[in-house]
């Protein structure tokens, strides 16, 4: 069985190169096909399926969309979904060995569990003007920790956690101070840091940290601390086409060329072990099998051009499924802005 030409639907992964990368499904590429974008055709080809979903991570698949849209989702998830993060840190007293600016930076990166939809954008003041914060655009946290000797510690104690009191400052020590009507607005879901166990600083007796941190809305494009995702990535669905049967010892060797669970061995018609593709999603496309001459003409590797396996890992600020819905909304608002702006331009 010869290698089938799948260049329209798949990217070919060869031992030394990747071919058929560009899309060819647009008008004018083939003289006998129109390939015009059609809503009904798009609806028919579009498929979305959620593989796994929990509080932090989501793995889902989309097929039937263009790479530019898949990439737009990824970029939006990373850089353009608004979240709250500490932007202003007012240090009242810091006698720890961590410099003020380093401490401020560390606090800035602590994720905050607060619904961004409940807040307005903070208006940055123009040069020479005073900043005006309100309870609708700013969240205030305070941190006050002083390290002292533990009077009850054993004389031969070596562990700093037992020897001293408050030897470590954690993100959980940042206490929310409700302003204005925030207490009633967030009565059901008080604002807090996502993870209370992040070490912010270490102290020794006599050292103290006393500060106030103000959080505002922002986007990841401005600073990574505003990004709601730890990772947001996609990959194309791998394909493994076995062109002629791989049997016996070759089948065992072939199975070892792939990660566990990709290739399964089953009994062939003549009683020999035969290789069969079990789960392509587990494949990392390492191309290991193409290094062996015995498999050179027996296998064809590739990736489906319009089938995307997305993986979204949230920082815990919002659930990953909510993030994806928000990314759609952000993209829609961008397209609407283009549409309305152009429609308002009279000249042509």
């Amino acid at each position, binding site marked *: 069985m010869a290698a089938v030409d799948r260049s329209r639907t798949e990217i070919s992964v060869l031992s030394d190169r990747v071919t058929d990368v560009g899309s060819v*499904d*647009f*008008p*004018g590429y083939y003289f006998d096909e*129109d*390939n*015009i*974008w059609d*809503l009904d055709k*798009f*609806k028919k080809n*579009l*498929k*979305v*399926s*959620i593989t796994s*979903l929990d509080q932090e991570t989501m793995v*889902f698949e*989309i097929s039937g*969309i*263009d*790479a*530019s*849209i898949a*990439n*737009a989702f990824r*970029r*939006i998830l990373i850089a*353009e979904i608004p979240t709250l993060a500490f932007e202003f840190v007012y240090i009242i007293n810091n006698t720890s060995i961590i410099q003020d600016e380093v401490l401020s930076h560390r606090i800035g990166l602590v994720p905050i569990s607060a619904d961004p939809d409940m807040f307005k954008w903070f208006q*940055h003041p123009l040069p020479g003007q005073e900043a005006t914060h309100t309870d609708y655009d700013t969240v205030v946290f305070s941190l006050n920790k002083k390290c002292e000797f533990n009077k009850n510690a054993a004389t031969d104690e070596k562990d700093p956690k037992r020897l001293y009191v408050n030897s470590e400052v954690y993100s959980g020590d940042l206490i929310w101070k409700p302003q204005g009507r925030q207490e009633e607005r967030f009565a059901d879901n008080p604002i807090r840091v996502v993870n209370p166990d992040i070490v912010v600083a270490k102290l020794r007796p006599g050292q103290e940290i006393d500060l106030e941190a103000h959080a505002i809305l922002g*986007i990841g*494009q*401005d*600073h990574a601390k505003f990004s709601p995702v730890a990772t947001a990535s996609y990959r194309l669905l791998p394909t493994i086409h076995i062109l002629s049967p791989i049997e016996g010892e070759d089948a065992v060797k072939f199975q070892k060329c792939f990660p566990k669970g990709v290739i399964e061995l089953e009994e062939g018609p003549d009683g020999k072990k035969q290789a069969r593709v079990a789960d392509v999603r587990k494949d990392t496309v390492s191309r290991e099998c193409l290094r062996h001459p015995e498999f050179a003409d027996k296998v064809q590797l590739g990736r489906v051009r319009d089938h995307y396996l997305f993986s979204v890992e949230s920082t815990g600020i919002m659930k990953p*499924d909510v993030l*994806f*819905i928000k990314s*759609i909304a952000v*993209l*829609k608002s*961008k*397209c*609407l*802005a*283009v*549409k309305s*702006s*152009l*429609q308002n*331009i009279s*000249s*042509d």
Partner: protein
Amino acid sequence: MNQPERYELIELMGLPKVTYELDSKSPNAAVVTLEKEDHTLANMLANQLLSDERVLFAGYKVPHPLNHNFILRVQTVEDCSPKQVIVDAAKSLITHLEEIKVNFMREWELKMISVEGVEMEFS
């Protein structure tokens, strides 16, 4: 300090969102500049424009990575204006996104039902 303000990435600062100019070099062509946008929107628009049979050319460039704008150039067939084609492309993209959202929500609801079903079995 020489560093530009971070909010300049997002805020229009009095600039128009879209600037539309007809291209003098070729017929039925236009150059559109979009402020405070990047590859995210540009690539989507350019690819959507290419799937329209009325479009002869569609491409974009980001003139400089520190200036947050991109230039989109579109050339169309005679009986159609570039502006209309871009508006149609934006509409198509909105439809695209609506459809993805509907499909995703349907899948999400099914996932929730299956998860709740498992919990109900164990309880």
